[in-house]
């Protein structure tokens, strides 16, 4: 609104005593003030590619403050100065709610040109015609090879791309090296299998009175049953590649049984108490030294760097293997860049997306935000980047290793809202109402029923 003098208008509003006049005044004022000098959503520029015309692009992200925002805005500035015919404007939208707003905007026909979207639902949006098919803009055959294959897979709907992966994450386990040493474990040799993880946890447990002073590890914190079962089942999530429901496989049942044993070991009361104290996400049990090993997204590294005391000596290891040789399978998420349907400058928008996903820019974004990038070469460069500290290098090296076995689980088109159905059965198992087998059988049946409803 710039130099908008609201006081004047309010005064005027008070002066006018009759309702219709107040109405008219406010209508005039807001409209003239908010629409002056805008608006990409009006999109009057129309034809793109006309010589000399500048395409105005609106780019929505949820990077509202801190290093991510500074970095993206600096990147956009560079992009704008390098491209005479394109001008990108970054608009921050609140995390999570950005997608509700995007949906409304797409439905209303005034969507922005590029949106940072959730990686898991690209196919859903492609199917519902919310995202633009990018095939005609991808000229370079080898474009897809720049990205981790499992990330690129998520953007394909009927073998055609509807988005470009931007960044990703992978679940790993952070451990307290000092606690390892105190427990007589080798801090440079963290657990590699489930059995070793269990042994290490037992060694790290410190009981005090009825409870624990330090808990070695509890598998249901941050990393859910979905990840452990996937790890045990050699990377197959609740759904296989063809979309078949794969919930009650023997490996998954065994994994759930294993998790239930952990609960029995520590006792439900201990677990509940910890969850009550740390569940809101304010206090951090790993930083506070209450748990010695904790599953997290690798990006948790940023929290540690910013919030942990300097003397906290920590390390990271991959999710252990179910059995030796079964693979360090783990789970990840991430974000993609999409062009909504029916925007006016898809060609220029893709030019911008190409820029944001280029090795150089990806490297720059990663270096400033410690995000794990979707571009393989960018991550590789970051593993040896001279400007990153030792810790930072370590993180990107771990990312490179862990991403080899990281599975992304896009929302299945036939059962997009399956999560409550599975969760309720797993909860029943943890409450002791069902055995692992019964719970997963019931979940299998429920989800199959949902798939049937949606066909």
């Amino acid at each position: 609104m710039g130099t908008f003098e609201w006081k004047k208008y309010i005064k005027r509003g008070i002066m006018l005593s009759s309702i219709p006049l107040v109405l008219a005044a406010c209508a005039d004022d807001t409209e003239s003030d908010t629409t002056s000098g805008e608006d990409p959503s009006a999109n009057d520029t129309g034809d793109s590619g006309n010589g000399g015309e500048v395409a105005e692009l609106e780019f929505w992200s949820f990077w509202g403050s801190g290093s991510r925002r500074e970095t993206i805005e600096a990147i956009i500035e560079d992009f704008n100065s390098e491209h005479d015919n394109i001008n990108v404007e970054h608009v921050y939208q609140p995390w999570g709610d950005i997608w509700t707003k995007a949906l409304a905007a797409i439905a209303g026909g005034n969507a922005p040109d590029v949106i940072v979207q959730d990686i898991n639902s690209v196919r859903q949006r492609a199917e519902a015609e919310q995202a633009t098919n990018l095939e005609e803009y991808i000229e370079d055959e080898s474009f897809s090879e720049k990205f981790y294959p499992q990330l690129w897979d998520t953007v394909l709907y009927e073998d055609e791309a509807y988005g470009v992966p931007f960044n990703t994450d992978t679940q790993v386990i952070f451990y307290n090296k000092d606690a390892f040493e105190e427990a007589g474990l080798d801090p440079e040799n963290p657990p590699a299998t489930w059995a070793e993880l269990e042994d290490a946890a037992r060694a790290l447990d410190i009981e005090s009175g009825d409870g624990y002073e330090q808990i070695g590890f509890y598998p249901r914190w941050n990393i859910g049953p979905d990840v452990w079962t996937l790890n045990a089942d050699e990377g197959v999530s609740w759904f296989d590649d063809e979309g078949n429901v794969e919930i009650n496989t023997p490996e998954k049942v065994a994994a759930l049984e294993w998790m239930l044993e952990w609960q029995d070991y520590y006792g439900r009361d201990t677990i509940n108490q910890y969850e009550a104290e740390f569940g809101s996400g304010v206090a951090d049990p790993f930083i506070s030294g209450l748990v010695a090993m904790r599953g997290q997204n690798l990006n948790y590294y940023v929290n540690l760097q910013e919030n942990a005391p300097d003397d906290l000596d920590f390390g990271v290891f991959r999710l252990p293997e179910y059995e030796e040789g079964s693979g360090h399978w783990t789970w990840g998420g991430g974000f993609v860049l999409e062009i909504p349907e029916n925007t006016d400058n898809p060609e220029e928008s893709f030019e911008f997306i190409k820029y944001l996903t280029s090795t150089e820019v990806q490297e720059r974004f990663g270096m400033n935000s410690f995000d794990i990038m979707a571009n393989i070469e960018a991550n590789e460069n970051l593993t040896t980047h001279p400007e990153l500290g030792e810790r930072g290098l370590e993180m990107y090296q771990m990312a490179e290793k862990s991403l080899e076995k990281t599975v992304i689980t896009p929302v299945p088109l036939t059962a997009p809202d399956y999560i409550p159905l599975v969760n309720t059965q797993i909860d029943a198992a943890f409450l002791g109402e069902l055995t692992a087998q019964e719970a997963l059988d019931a979940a299998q049946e429920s989800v199959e029923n949902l798939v049937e409803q949606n066909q």
Partner: protein
Amino acid sequence: MKNADTSQFSKAIQEIKTLKKKNWSKRKKKEAWWGLLFVAPFIIGFLGFMLLPMLFSFYGSFTNYNITSQMDFIGLANFKRMFTQDELFTTSLYNTAYYVLFNVPLTAVGSVFLAVLLNRQIFGIRAFRTIFYLPAVLSGVAVYVLWMQLLSPSSGLVNTVLSWVGIDGPAWLFDPEWTKPALILMRLWSVGGSMLLYLATLQNVPKQLYESAEVDGAGFTRKFFHITLPLITPIIFYDIVTSTIGAFQIFQEAYVMTEGGTGGPSNSLLFYNLHMWNKAFVAFDMGYAMAMSMILFIIVLTLTFINLKLAPKWVNY
């Protein structure tokens, strides 16, 4: 309003009515125009902003509308699916009914109690009123974090207090049997909003009524039941009708507490609107969500109708 009113004024008016029957119909017509003038803003607003979206949702409930690409008429298929296939529909309806059943009377009683407590001229009363209203202003995260700690099974304040009187408190937010009571407790804590309504109404109770009752030796209870309560029935009625409607639409708290609508332990916090949200914005199955909203509309409409029919028996205008 239609209660027999035998005061002199209305008698006089009655006489005028009979005397001037001819003029009366003219007056009636004029009254009708006045009435329409006063409610006109609502009618305009309704036609302008609400009617089309409501009709759209109504029609949408018979389609496979997915917000962006399809809206084909599929008859009653959504409703059929709801009642025969969707397991979570019944779960969510049960959870919601449970919540409404306890939340509505408890908040009504709680807010009347607070309002009466605060309706006195004592030192610092404005500060107290402000503090009591605070929970209605405080939103989201801070409150949630606090309640997580208050309801912590072994170290939380609530269970600590219970243990003083020999009660072994439940695991609250971790036990599916107790998540809804926990939520009801949380909501009860923020009755400041409806307290405000009662407080405003109590200002209209003539002070001399209390004074003379006091002289007569009436205690707090008698004053409350014989003077205060009858006079605030119109607002109690309002409170019950609107909080029933509001309680059926509980969403925000459950959405925050279950980390994005996943339903909480054993789906015990999967309320109707949460399930609807998941269908609409997670599965893009907006047609189905619109069908769900129709069912909710019918339920709430029926309850409101019953409320309106019962009102003359106890509401004292």
